[in-house]
């Protein structure tokens, strides 16, 4: 028995509760486990009693039950439905909070590719397969893939988000315990899927500052600066900073605004819109402009696209000026 307890202790000890969301998920899980175990125990005991008591040849009475069958059925259906409804709402409530990313969080860009995680910070640092984050500081992880679908899974945070090529998907977490936690790729992605592991290192504010001063791989300037380089390399200004403003819509102040397309549809200029408008531009003809922009799909890579979006985001408040 003591060995069993040690074993179950070890099991719960193996999975740390290291984010603000983790205890909330575990609470729902505990409710499910309590309801589920109760059902299993009650049904097992009931079945065993019935098997013994009503075995063939036993003396127990077999007089027909006096309760109408439909009443029993109705109470089972109602009871089950009520318990299920409660569990549904409990799980959906936490899920909606997971999916509602608080505005204004610091961002880390993570690009999945067969079979590694390419991690870039806004300040220009770059790492592979490791993310450093600060304790009690919520962070948004902006995910994209260069090839197939991957999935960003940190069990200790109870966070999982598929990383889908052609899409920009974000997730977030607020780390609440220092330590190093495993990052898995949870969506099968080919030969070395099981080796696509990484780690998330949660540092105390002091340690984080020390780490941030350290020399890491540089991704070539801040995300904004890298994005500006992409902006210049592809000559975006030629059309988008046309003095008459006729060739292409101006980009300053674009991020977060409402865009009206030629067919009357209105879209919010968020990360996904910018991504699609750059890479799949023929699909997005902005009202009042001819469709002259070619598709940059396969020309601007996912990482460059994310940097470019970071640059446009930084230019959201001011008209885009030609920077030195």
């Amino acid at each position, binding site marked *: 028995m003591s060995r069993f307890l040690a074993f179950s202790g070890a099991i719960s000890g193996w999975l740390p509760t290291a984010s603000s969301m983790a205890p909330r998920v575990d609470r729902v899980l505990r409710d499910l486990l309590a309801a589920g175990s109760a059902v299993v125990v009650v049904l097992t005991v009931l079945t065993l009693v019935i098997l013994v008591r009503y075995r063939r040849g036993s003396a127990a009475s077999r007089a027909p*039950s006096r309760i109408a069958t439909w009443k029993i*059925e109705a109470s089972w259906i109602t009871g089950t439905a009520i318990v299920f409804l409660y*569990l549904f709402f409990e799980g959906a409530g936490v899920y909606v909070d997971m999916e509602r990313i608080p505005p204004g969080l610091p961002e880390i860009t993570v690009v999945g590719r067969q079979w590694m995680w390419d991690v870039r910070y806004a300040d220009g640092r770059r790492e592979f397969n490791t993310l450093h984050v600060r304790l009690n500081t919520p962070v948004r992880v902006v995910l994209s893939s260069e090839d197939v679908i991957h999935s960003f899974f940190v069990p200790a945070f109870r966070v999982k988000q598929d990383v889908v090529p052609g899409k920009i998907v974000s997730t977030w977490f607020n780390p609440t315990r220092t330590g190093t936690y*495993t990052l898995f790729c949870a969506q099968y992605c080919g030969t070395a899927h099981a080796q696509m592991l990484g780690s998330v290192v949660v540092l105390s504010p002091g340690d984080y500052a020390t780490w941030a001063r350290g020399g890491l791989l540089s991704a070539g300037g801040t995300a904004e600066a890298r994005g500006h380089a992409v902006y210049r390399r592809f000559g975006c200004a030629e059309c988008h900073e046309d003095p008459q403003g006729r060739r292409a819509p101006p980009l300053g102040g674009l991020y977060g605004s409402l865009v009206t397309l030629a067919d009357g549809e209105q879209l919010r200029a968020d990360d996904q819109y910018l991504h699609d408008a750059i890479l799949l531009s023929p699909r997005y003809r902005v009202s009042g402009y001819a469709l002259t922009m070619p598709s940059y799909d396969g020309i601007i890579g996912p990482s460059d696209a994310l940097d470019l979006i970071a640059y446009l985001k930084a230019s959201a408040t001011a008209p885009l000026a030609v920077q030195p």
Partner: protein
Amino acid sequence: MNPATPAERQDAAPSYLGGETTVASWLGTLDHKRIALLYLFTITAFFVVGAVAAALMRWQLAVPTADLVTSDTYNRLFTLHGVVMVWFFLIPSIPAVLGNFILPLAIGARDVAFPRLNLASWYIFVAGGLVTLYAIVVGGVDTGWTFYTPYSSTYSNGHVMVMAAGIFVAGFSSIATGLNFIVTVHKLRAPGLTWFRLPLFVWAIYATSIIMVLATPVLAITLLLMGLERVLGVGIFDPRIGGDPLLFQHLFWFYSHPAVYIMILPGMGVVSEIITCFSRKRIFGYPVMAVSILSIAGLGFLVWGHHMFVSSQSVYAGVVFSFLSFMVSVPSAIKVFNWIATMYRGSITLSTPLLYVLGFLALFTIGGLTGVFLATLAVDVHLHDTYFVIAHFHYIMVGGGVMAYLGGVHYWWPKISGRMFPEGIAAFAAVTIFVGFNLTFFPQYLLGYLGMPRRYMTYPAEFHTLNVISTLGALVLAVGYVLPLVYLTWSFFRGAPAGPNPWGATGLEWQTSSPPPEENFRETPVVTGPPYDYPPL
């Protein structure tokens, strides 16, 4: 020549196993019972193939590092295991074997509505199976049975198209069988056998057939689109050529979630037959049982999005699919309660078929409840694509589906073979399978909660202990599966003669001799009462 009286014909008519016994007479037979046996041999062979792949995987997983096979081989093994077990064992298991054999007998018919189509279904199935086996022999496929794009359509280095073609072909066998059964139930019921006098096994096969006919074409379309992209480069799923990877998941699960019900609904029918027979009681709440089968079949089409909670589909879609998934579990829960209520105040004999059913009840309940865990949004985010999911669907599809299949095979074995199986060793095998199954798959629930992702051939050391327990369990399970293969084969030739109705059951199939003659009944039976009309205790 004077026509013989019915009684004389019955005496003269050999059983379906007698008469012509040449290979050609079997391969050209139009008798639903012989076709059922053709399926029995074929799917047993496929089961062995799928089980060997599973055994190799569990052997590899006994250690955390790559030891037995390379990762490319491992990826081919789990693809093979999934494809073969889903499409070439589980989906045809109860419908094509027990459905084919029992359905016409249970409704008092001489055969299915379209005997030639029935034989054609088997040939199509074998053709699809051979193409799939060819894909395995020439090098295998490494996409997983789910064929997610864009991996399958552009990046995978296996023989994806060959295997997809095999599944595509086999799908037509499902459709033809489903169609055949639907028409059979509508048109060939014995006089007096009204819809609400149908045994629940017939209801279950009927509902399953509807799913087969409606869902399988979507799978065919999906595989065809994947082929268009992989071979001709038409952008459908790969975003680099203008496609959408999530579209594939929607289409795939629109088929594959109902396919789960193709695998479990027939089992529910078998359980209802066995539990009434060995409790000597009518089923508790017959109308609710029949309606719940139909509502599970219908609602099963509306929940595919619960496979995609973390796929980046819309939050609102996630909430709606979660709600509908909870709703589909209500009728399943009600069925479990009704089965237990059927035994209450019955007269219970613990024969082997009932042991399998008790195993089914336990494993299906655990599998169903953990399915509720996965329908719960926030919890699924953590458990999705981990071993928790593997454990959950094995509890349903193996713990539920295969236990019911084996229970049904034992229950109807005297009818199929005309002989009894050895009760002692059969009961021992049933208990061995139950124990082995739990040892294999229960640790996987824990592994999943701890975060071990599925389709990992190597894993961090902290998952080692539980994986070793699981592998040892698989060894016990293998022993349990080999036993019936041996003693049923023995019993087929040497078992004690069974007589028409060894269990004292009520269904029409028990009113003819064992094994039944060609065309089943000497005189068409007439039904005058409800099903499971056991005398009051």
